[in-house]
Every structure is written in C-alpha cells, then in structure tokens.
C-alpha cells in the first residue's frame, strides 16, 4: 500500500489525487482480479494497476500547453562540435544527494519537466518498466518512449546544471 501511494504521488505530485488514484486502483484491481493470470507477482500486477490509475487521472486533468525543452538541450556548431564546453559539476552525485536542499531542488527540477517527458522518466527510470510496457501503458511506440526518455534525461541535466556546475559557488 505505501509503495502504491508513492508511485501515484510521483506521477501526480498531489497527495489527494494520489490517494484517489490508489483507491481507484484497488477498486479496479478488485473488479478485475479474475483476469490476474498469475504470470507475475500480485504486487507487480497491483503496481501496474496503480500506474494505470495514476496516468488516467493525469490525463483527466486540464491539459496545459507543453513547453519546449529545446533550450535545455546541448547546442552544436554546424560541424557537429559542442557550441560550448559543458561545465563539470561541483560535487559527486552522492555528495549532492546528502543535502536536503539539493534533493528538494532536484525534485523541483523533475516537476518542471513537461508532462510527456516527466511521465516517461518516472515510468522508465523510477518505476523501472521496460520500454515495451511503458509504450503500451502510454499508448505510444517503443521508439517514441526511447526518444522521450533520452530527451527527458537531457532536459533534467540542463535544469540541474545552473546550480550544480563547478563555477557556481
């Protein structure tokens, strides 16, 4: 139960909506328990049902226009070289994770990602769904999941860079 709530919270970023989604997931699971074929763990099946419920809730929210992430992606010269040297970061990932304010900043950056990228990032990198399953749940092609995941990671890197680059105190 806490794990399902955590999944829904990550996708919905709102406690009340997350509780609603888990409630809907349990009802949906209860109704379709007969279709559970036993070819995976019940907890894995429930996890998928919860992801689906959270995504349905996400889709039902009023859509806002997706913002472009182009400014967060690296720029290249015509000959294909980097337009500028990407700065090193001031600390290792482990050191950054040790500070509460940096963890909050990272969460904030993930929340800033446009929905289509944030969702793929969460399903693939956090919930560890494989590309095939993420594609099925999102109703898009496997290749599009792959492209969006790479762009989401690049955009997250771009959002983190101003704070974490070595030349910033």
């Amino acid at each position, binding site marked *: *139960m*806490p794990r399902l*709530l*955590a999944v829904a*919270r*990550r996708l919905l970023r709102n406690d009340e909506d997350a*509780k609603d989604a*888990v*409630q809907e997931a*349990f*009802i949906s699971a*209860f*109704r379709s328990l007969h279709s559970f074929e036993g070819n995976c763990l019940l907890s894995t099946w429930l996890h998928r049902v919860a992801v689906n419920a959270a995504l349905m809730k996400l889709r039902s929210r009023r859509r806002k226009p997706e913002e472009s992430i182009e400014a967060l992606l*690296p720029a*290249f010269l015509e*000959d*294909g*070289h*980097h337009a500028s*040297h*990407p*700065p*090193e*970061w001031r600390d*290792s*990932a482990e050191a*950054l*994770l040790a500070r*509460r304010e940096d*963890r*909050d900043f*990272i*969460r904030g950056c*993930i929340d800033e990602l446009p929905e289509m990228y944030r969702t793929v*990032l*969460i399903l693939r*990198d*956090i919930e560890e769904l494989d590309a095939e399953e993420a594609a099925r749940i999102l109703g898009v092609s496997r290749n599009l999941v*792959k492209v969006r*995941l*790479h762009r989401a*990671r*690049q955009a*997250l*890197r771009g959002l*983190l*860079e101003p704070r*974490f680059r070595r030349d910033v105190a």
Partner: protein
Amino acid sequence: MSHDVTCREFVDFLDDYLSGALGDEARGGFHAHLAACPSCVAYMKTYQAAVQLGRSVLTRSDEPVPEEVPEELVRAILATRKKA
C-alpha cells in the same frame, strides 16, 4: 558508422552507447571520440549524474508515507464487494 563520430552524434546516441545497444563498429567509433573529446566526457558524466540523481530522489522520500490503509478506501472496497 564508419566516419568519425561528431559530438552531436555522440550525444544523440549517448543512451544507446551507455546501455550497450550499439554494435561493435559503432561502439569503437564512440570510444575513439570519447578518448579525444573532453566536452563529450563532461557531458556524459553530468548526464549519468542527472539520471542517478533523478532515480535517487524519487525513490527515497523525505516525507513520511502513511502506513495505514485510508478509511475511505476500506469503505469503497467493502461497497464494491457488496455489489459484486
């Protein structure tokens, strides 16, 4: 990919490179590019750090998750069971 790999190509296929999805020939080209390009080394390291940071902060919550099952959930399940 028999020509020299550019930074743009390296970044475009970075995910495939890191996940081992490239063929031997392409992988060799990427290794050679990385050995000669500090910009792509820096980009790759910070890309990997971003992935690690994202994974870590979302899988470890700084806020407590309630252990108890919400009362309204129990009521909803019981109501559904009565209908079934």
